[in-house]
């Protein structure tokens, strides 16, 4: 799991908590208002009076609305953008069986496969819709043989999985210091 995914998940959880607490606060304020009590934490009478003095022509109102539209469109584009596939279908002969492998599991097995190739010290894999990229390290200054060994191992593994024609492997080798 990369840093962007971790960040997105933490932000999502925090946002969900903010919405939950905000919703509860609003509910409490509504009940207090119905009972004729003073506001608790949200100074809504002041907000309501400020909003009452605004018109559609007000610069502040227009700026806020334009900002909301921009943020909404940006979120829409992000949501509609096709992400990486969560799973990849594997070919099977049984027509009533539908087999798939999670992208994370595929990356793990390809990284393990590359790491076992001759000369490879460590390896990681990133799978996309049509390509899989292996980033490997080696202590061997001559990286050509190591790269070829890793590429052969990964290609064989993809062939075993039935993904050889669908995912194109690429191997990047770095010499570890």
């Amino acid at each position: 799991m990369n840093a962007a995914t971790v960040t997105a998940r933490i932000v999502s959880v925090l946002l969900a908590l903010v919405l939950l607490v905000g919703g509860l606060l609003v509910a409490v304020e509504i009940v207090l208002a119905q009972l004729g009590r003073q506001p608790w934490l949200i100074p809504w009478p002041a907000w309501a009076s400020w909003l009452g003095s605004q018109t559609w022509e007000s610069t502040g109102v227009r700026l806020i609305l334009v900002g909301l539209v921009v943020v909404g469109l940006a979120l829409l584009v992000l949501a509609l953008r096709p992400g990486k596939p969560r799973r990849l279908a594997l070919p099977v002969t049984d027509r009533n069986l539908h087999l798939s492998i999670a992208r994370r599991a595929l990356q793990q097995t390809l990284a393990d496969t590359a790491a076992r190739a001759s000369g490879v010290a460590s390896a990681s894999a990133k799978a996309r819709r049509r390509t899989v990229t292996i980033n490997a390290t080696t202590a061997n200054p001559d990286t050509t043989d190591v790269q070829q060994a890793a590429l052969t191992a990964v290609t064989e593994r993809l062939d075993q999985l039935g993904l050889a024609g669908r995912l194109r492997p690429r191997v990047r080798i770095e010499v570890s210091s």
Partner: protein
Amino acid sequence: MSTETVPDLTPSPAEARVPEPEGRGSLRIHDRVVEKVAGYAVTTVPDAAAAPRRVLGLTVGSPRSDDEAAKVTATVYGDSVSVSATIAVAWPSPIRGVAAQLAQRIRGEISHHTGLRVDRVDLNVVSLRLSEVQGRRVQ
């Protein structure tokens, strides 16, 4: 209804009201029953096991034992059922071979225990690291 009786041959009034066997009720097998059976089937196939638990994308807890039933979703449609399971396969066993064997076992177990026909099996392999953490099963 006639009250004229022949003691040894004519059914009593209560028996006469009992409908034919096929009309006396129905048997409906719940989705959860099929899920249990299929989850157990996963434990019987070498090199297949329940997938590790994940929370927010992170693996939590220790690896699942071979005897632990897999997470399965089943939907019964009349006499047929579709099954979806999330599993782990021992690396480097051939995934497609293990999956074919498992699908066969799931069909057999469900057919044997419930009489339902399995129309579709969806298997999602989410882990291939089983053998590295708990070793291969002795066969």
